[in-house]
């Protein structure tokens, strides 16, 4: 059996490791556009800020490829997939045949057609180690005193913090009326904005960049919708990522927003699988196929894909959006649904001066989402309640108690979890 994995990051790593648990001898190739061995994309801001070293960036040990008996092909992107002849073609001209193919190419940053953006050389995105190196090099050279970051989502806010830690004066411009609109509610967003203020990061909400003005390709100023004009040294576009699917255009693999997969992570083509930020897979609360670009989803999908590719049937329980972050002193974990719908119950608990917050959204008697700050150590219990669609019953009254845990569960469920008896 010959497996070709396109991608060399979270989901491809987990696919390779799952394949090896089933098939010790099959040939496994991992192809990547980038030249690095697997690294932690989610730490790019800590690389820029120099809070952590290169050592922290590598996702797996130096000899991982050898140990896994994986043959890496790094540095040239796949430009075409021929699913009839079962061949992938690289930009370098090299071709690989496969028996089973995994598409794990992640996302590409979305750069909107802002006037003047194409003519400017000081515009960056922030989704690869290469991007982070280019920005860090300029900071190291003392060329970046100020920056504008477009987008206050996960990537934009993290990039802003990384730059601010290096003494760069950062302004984040966000179209919506709060930071992290898809990851926290407005209450926590307000606290995050206060942390940013302490770090010297300014935030401009309900605004966006309308025009980039440069001279000889060098950034002069950016004009905002509000009419204000800023004069940063660099501009970072962090509006979001979209599934990286362009090279599939000539194949018959079905693509909607991302590559459509079933609960075995199989695409519309029998021997082709997809996982991670590129895939559009069933979501756990709605059952609808969605793209949820986060690490725990990428790794689990990679693992399920790997098992199924190697012939061990495994069903994907469905993706759940969740995230854990800290801004300054404020630690936050959130998961699932954040905006209540008609009929949902919302439970909140706030200790303003401590910056302690808990919010739970209960839908049809089951936990559907939560936001926690500060007191986060039991977050996984809530995550599991959501994922396992547990009927809350009386537990609903205890959700916001500190140290909420299995002792609040009904006896039968609690004992089955604690004692694992047959």
């Amino acid at each position, binding site marked *: 059996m010959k497996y070709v994995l396109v991608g060399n990051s979270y989901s491809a790593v*987990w696919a390779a490791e799952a394949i090896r648990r089933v098939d010790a001898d099959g040939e496994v190739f991992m192809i990547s556009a980038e030249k690095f061995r697997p690294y*932690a994309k*989610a*730490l790019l801001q*800590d690389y820029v800020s120099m*809070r*952590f070293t290169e*050592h*922290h*960036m*590598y*996702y*797996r040990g130096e000899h991982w490829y050898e140990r896994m008996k994986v043959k890496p092909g790094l540095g040239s992107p796949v430009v075409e997939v021929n699913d009839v002849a079962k061949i992938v073609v690289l930009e370098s001209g090299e071709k690989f045949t496969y028996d089973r193919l995994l598409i794990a190419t992640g996302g590409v940053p979305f750069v909107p057609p802002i006037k003047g953006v194409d003519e400017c050389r000081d515009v960056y995105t922030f989704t690869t180690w290469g991007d982070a190196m280019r920005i860090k090099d300029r900071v190291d050279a003392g060329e970046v005193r100020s920056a504008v970051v477009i987008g206050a989502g996960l990537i934009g806010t993290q990039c802003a913090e990384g730059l601010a830690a290096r003494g760069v004066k950062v302004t984040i411009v966000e179209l919506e009326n709060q930071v992290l609109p898809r990851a926290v509610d407005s209450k926590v967003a307000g606290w995050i904005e206060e942390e940013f203020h302490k770090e010297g990061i300014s935030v401009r909400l309900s605004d966006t960049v309308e025009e980039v003005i440069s001279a000889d390709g060098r950034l002069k100023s950016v004009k905002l919708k509000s009419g204000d004009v800023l004069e940063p040294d660099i501009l970072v576009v962090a509006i979001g990522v979209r599934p990286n699917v362009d090279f599939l255009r000539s194949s018959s693999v079905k693509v909607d927003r991302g590559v459509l997969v079933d609960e075995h992570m199989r695409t519309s083509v029998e021997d082709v699988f997809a996982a991670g930020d590129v895939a559009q897979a069933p979501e756990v609360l709605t059952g609808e196929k969605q793209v949820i670009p986060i*690490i*725990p989803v990428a*790794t*689990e999908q990679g*693992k399920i894909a790997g098992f199924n590719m190697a012939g061990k049937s495994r069903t994907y329980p469905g993706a759940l959006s*969740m*995230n*854990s*972050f*800290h801004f300054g002193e404020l*630690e936050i*974990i959130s*998961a699932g649904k954040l905006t209540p719908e008609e009929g949902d119950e919302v439970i909140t608990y706030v200790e303003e001066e401590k910056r302690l917050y808990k919010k739970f959204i209960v839908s049809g008697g089951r936990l559907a989402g939560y936001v926690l700050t500060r007191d*986060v*150590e*039991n*977050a*996984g*219990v809530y*995550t*599991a*309640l959501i*994922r*396992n669609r*547990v009927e809350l019953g009386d537990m609903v009254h205890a959700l916001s108690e500190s*140290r909420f*845990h*299995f*002792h*609040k569960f009904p*006896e039968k*469920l*609690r*004992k*089955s*979890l*604690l*004692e*694992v*008896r*047959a």
Partner: protein
Amino acid sequence: MKVVYPREDFCVQCYLCQVACVVEHSQSKNVINAYFRENLRFTERCSVYAEGPVSFSLMCRHCTEPECLEACKNGTLYRDEEGRVLVNPEKCVGCWMCIMACPYGVIKRRQLETRRIAHKCDLCPESEIPACVRACPNGALLFEDRGERNDEVRARW
């Protein structure tokens, strides 16, 4: 693999498991020194939970397919050859993705001098039987291999 399972009907809420855990992971292996000289108070890797007559101590199950490993940003969490799920303290950046993902809620935050890292049960590598199990006066913690049931139960609550 053998891991630690609590029996709530036998737990007397004495917290000796927590103390034994701290001492086992100390330099001095002495209660007073561990708490006062080495400053290890609150570094136990198991937690006692109690509600009325119900109490139990809970710690990592060392799952075959751990959610914490899948969520980890940079490969800090790993399984060793014996199957134990461990934290590489040098590598941990304290992002708490593992805490968000662990269905048993047994990963803690530990304060080091300059940073905080994930902290969890390591099954006491220096001892044949984990310290909490040895310390339990009433057999409320058992060190046993319950095979695949461990994973089956976790997969469907």
